[in-house]
């Protein structure tokens, strides 16, 4: 057996029991490596329905900066007896198994092609601490200490992190440092070190910040001026609403009066959540809700009303595996069609696809502007992978000169001056009509909002031409939306190529890495990262410019591909679906293998209409 050796390029996985305090210790571990200038990308894995509630925390350490999930495990920190067998099995040959050796285990519980590192964590804790809680909490810190010795992590960075976390709480600081030392001492004295996996100081992190997408989106809503948030708890979106609450308490309380410049309602269900958002949007507030697939299903009737009655609404959908409860704690991009065409009747909605927490921030703030500008629901399609995992991402930016775009709102002064108000009339040729806030003027500008058809003056009408005028105007408005949403991001291959790939959202880091791997193999691919729906014309041009285009997605049915085919009337044979949907984040290995296979086949025989797909 040859132990794995790797520096700044490995995957370590922690198997823990939920609620044991492991989360903060594991984050400490990841952050210490970051502080050494080495990029990490951790992922929480937390099945929702297994007894004993095991959780895993998988950390990829990678100096080149690949932040996608790699697949495979080089070191397992096995702290959960219940998942032991599966955890040991998952380890790559030559990998390292770190475990609590307090209770002896029979040899059958191990493998002979791995390096086993036992440390009597429980025994040391029981010996050192009398309090049951302390025993548990410090056990985690202790293994971080031991790992720092084994992997060559600078303990000064860990101490610094403690110092920041426990500023002004000297007692907590001291006890944490002590636990760390206990772990380090034991490892130095009793464990063979260093092991083959090593962290070496680098300079590959730079200005980037380390944050989860849900916190980022919540902050984007704070900066973007959201004042009303209505939500109903659902994984993986709940932490977004909770973060919004937390940030509001910090940044949105009037310093003089102590009153809140926000209103958050945990509604009785998602129908009420969206109803509250619709009411607030109608009345001039910037309002949002956050949910996941099942919530989107429930919101459908209201989404149609908001589309047709033209009410600004922002919906942040943190996608998970469906249908139904599906895989509630796993990631997917499977609400694309459900959102794009949500509700009965002829509807189409604006979708934004953030690739990471930085864009979660940016697009959430932007969604609030677009909702007001376009007077329609705007969806931000995040997912569990970016939403609930901390990710290394570009710092948030905000320009203090930025004003909110409140869209076309006719004021009392304009009404008074005699400007004609026709709620549903296209006066500027962009399909977007003017609205008034309720209570604006004593005798002008009031109108009756309804989901039923009406004429341009908001008068009830069942006349066919009135209905058609309105529906055509909504299409025109959708065409205007195309010019306002974030443009797709192209990337040209090193060499001219007949092949392209389209991808979006959380697939980005895996895609970046896959492209690099394919290039190393001499396979070239132009790519286009789609950031919004409706698609820009450049998306159609990109497809037209290539013989075959792979559409990489994390769902079963190729939902974005369906949208492309449908919206552009593209020959489906031209778009080759590359689909990953087992609930784990897509990996570079998967993409490179799947696309590579097609490209190699194409080298032999050029891709023709009937040869692909």
């Amino acid at each position, binding site marked *: 057996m040859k132990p794995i050796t790797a520096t700044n390029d490995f995957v370590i996985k922690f198997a823990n029991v939920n609620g044991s305090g492991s989360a903060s210790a594991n984050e400490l571990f990841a952050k210490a490596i970051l502080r050494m200038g080495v990029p990490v990308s951790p992922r929480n894995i937390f099945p929702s329905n297994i007894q004993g509630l095991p959780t895993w925390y998988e950390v990829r350490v990678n100096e080149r900066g690949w932040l996608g999930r790699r697949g495979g495990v080089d070191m397992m920190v096995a702290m959960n007896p219940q998942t032991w067998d599966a955890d040991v099995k998952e380890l790559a040959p030559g990998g390292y198994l770190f475990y609590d050796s307090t209770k002896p285990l029979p040899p059958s519980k191990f493998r002979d092609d791995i390096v086993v590192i036992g440390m009597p964590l429980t025994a040391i804790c029981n010996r050192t601490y009398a309090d049951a809680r302390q025993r548990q909490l410090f056990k985690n810190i202790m293994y971080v200490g031991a790992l720092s010795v084994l992997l060559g992590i600078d303990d000064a960075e860990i101490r610094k992190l403690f110092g920041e976390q426990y500023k002004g709480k000297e007692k907590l600081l001291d006890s944490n440092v002590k636990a760390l030392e206990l772990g380090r001492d034991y490892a130095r004295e009793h464990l063979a070190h260093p092991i083959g996996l090593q962290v070496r100081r680098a300079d590959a992190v730079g200005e980037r910040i380390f944050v989860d997408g849900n916190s980022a989106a919540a902050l984007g809503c704070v900066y973007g001026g959201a004042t009303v948030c209505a939500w109903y708890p659902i994984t993986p979106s709940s932490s977004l609403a909770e973060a919004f609450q937390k940030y509001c308490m910090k940044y949105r309380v009037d310093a003089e009066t102590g009153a*809140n410049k926000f209103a958050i309602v945990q509604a009785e269900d998602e129908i009420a959540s969206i109803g*509250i958002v619709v009411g607030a949007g109608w*009345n001039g*507030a910037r309002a949002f809700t956050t949910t996941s697939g099942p919530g989107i299903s429930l919101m459908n*009737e209201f989404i149609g009303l908001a589309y047709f009655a033209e009410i600004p609404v922002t919906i942040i959908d943190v996608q998970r595996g469906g249908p139904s409860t599906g895989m509630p704690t796993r990631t997917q991009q499977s609400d694309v069609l459900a959102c794009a065409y949500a509700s009965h009747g002829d509807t189409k909605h604006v979708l934004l696809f953030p690739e990471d927490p930085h864009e979660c921030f940016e697009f959430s703030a932007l969604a609030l502007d677009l909702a007001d500008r376009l007077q329609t629901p705007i969806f931000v399609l995040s997912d569990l992978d970016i939403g609930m995992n901390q990710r290394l991402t570009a710092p948030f930016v905000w320009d203090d000169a930025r004003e909110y775009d409140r869209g076309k709102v006719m004021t009392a002064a304009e009404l008074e001056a005699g400007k004609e108000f026709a709620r549903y009339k296209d006066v500027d040729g962009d399909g977007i009509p003017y609205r008034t806030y*309720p209570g604006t003027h004593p005798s002008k500008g*009031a109108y009756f909002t309804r989901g039923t058809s009406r004429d341009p003056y908001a008068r009830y009408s069942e006349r066919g031409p009135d209905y058609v005028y309105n529906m055509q105007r909504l299409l025109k408005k959708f065409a205007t939306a195309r010019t306002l949403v974030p443009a797709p991001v192209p990337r040209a291959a090193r060499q001219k190529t007949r092949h392209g790939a389209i991808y979006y959202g959380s697939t980005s880091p895996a895609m970046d890495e896959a492209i690099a791997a394919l290039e190393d193999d001499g396979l070239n691919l132009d790519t286009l990262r789609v950031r919004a729906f409706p698609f820009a014309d450049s998306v159609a041009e990109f497809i037209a410019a290539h013989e075959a285009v792979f559409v990489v997605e994390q769902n079963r049915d190729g939902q974005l591909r369906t949208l492309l085919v449908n919206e552009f009337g593209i020959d489906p044979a031209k778009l080759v679906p590359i689909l990953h949907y087992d609930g784990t984040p897509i990996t570079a290995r998967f993409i490179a293998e799947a696309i590579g296979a097609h490209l190699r086949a194409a080298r032999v025989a050029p891709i023709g209409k009937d040869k692909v797909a």
Partner: protein
Amino acid sequence: MTYIAKPKLHHPTLACNAIGFTRRDYEGKISTLCAGCGHDSISAAIIQACWELDIEPHRVAKLSGIGCSSKTPDYFLGQSHGFNTVHGRMPSVLTGANLANRELIYLGVSGDGDSASIGIGQFVHAIRRGVNMVYIVENNGVYGLTKGQFSATADLGSKSKKGVVNTDSPLDLVGLALQLGASFVARGFSGDKKQLVPLIKAAIKHRGPAVLDVISPCVAFNNHPGSTKSYDYVREHNEAANRLDFIDVRDEIVVDYAAGELIDITQHDGSVLRLRKLHANHDPHDRVAALAYVHERQAKGEVVTGLLYVDAEAEDLHRHLNTVPTPFHRLGAKELSPGAATLAKINAALR
């Protein structure tokens, strides 16, 4: 249902109120409801109440669900913004609207199908939350707009026009509202304008969820003998708990009632509700007693009307959420964005 335009609601005078508006200024589009529909009378009562209260029409936001009843906001207060939302979900939309701007008066209009059937959940939760609103249920015990199916307030054993017998127990919205913590609970009858107008006025002046269950006969589908929501039945079995006179803050309190027990209830804004008790055992400050009283009379086949319960000091959702008084649409980036310097600090803490 007829769509023949009918003349504007008849007004005996064109007198102006204190802010110079005539009743006509509180009217809306011409009603398209059936002639004789109770809902039109309620619209007339709303017009009267707003006129008498000197409310600027544009300071009212009127919201409804779907149904004949929910169509009515188009037929009154033409200078108010209105919102005909989706079936059963007016309460959530009203809640959001109210959160956005607390300066307006929120008037929710709904039907028994809208509120007691499809929308019972939202009815419940908007009340629980203490949304400051007037919530009028135009209760005819039937789905008018979809032509006569039973609603959740239909009488047990009643027969529909198509001959179907209702075997489900009826929901009592007044009893429910009392249990849910509504701080103003009343029942009226569309055919009794004298009672209804003061009730609506008092409800508008109330801070907190004011629930008004108004029996409103459907002449097309539920006005037959035996229906407890027919004109005849309510006229014969109406058990008024009290007679209400509403006295606005600036009015001098003058007693012009016949002798009898009188109670004055001063609301948070200083306006006074003067109740003349018809039934000695009804105390409008006692939620539990009100509930018992309604049930006791109901068991005798009587429909209790009047102001059943009021808590004049009630708080509302804005108090609970401690929101700023400014309507949210008036807050811009200056007030809402924490700024670039703060963001730099946030970034630093995330490294």
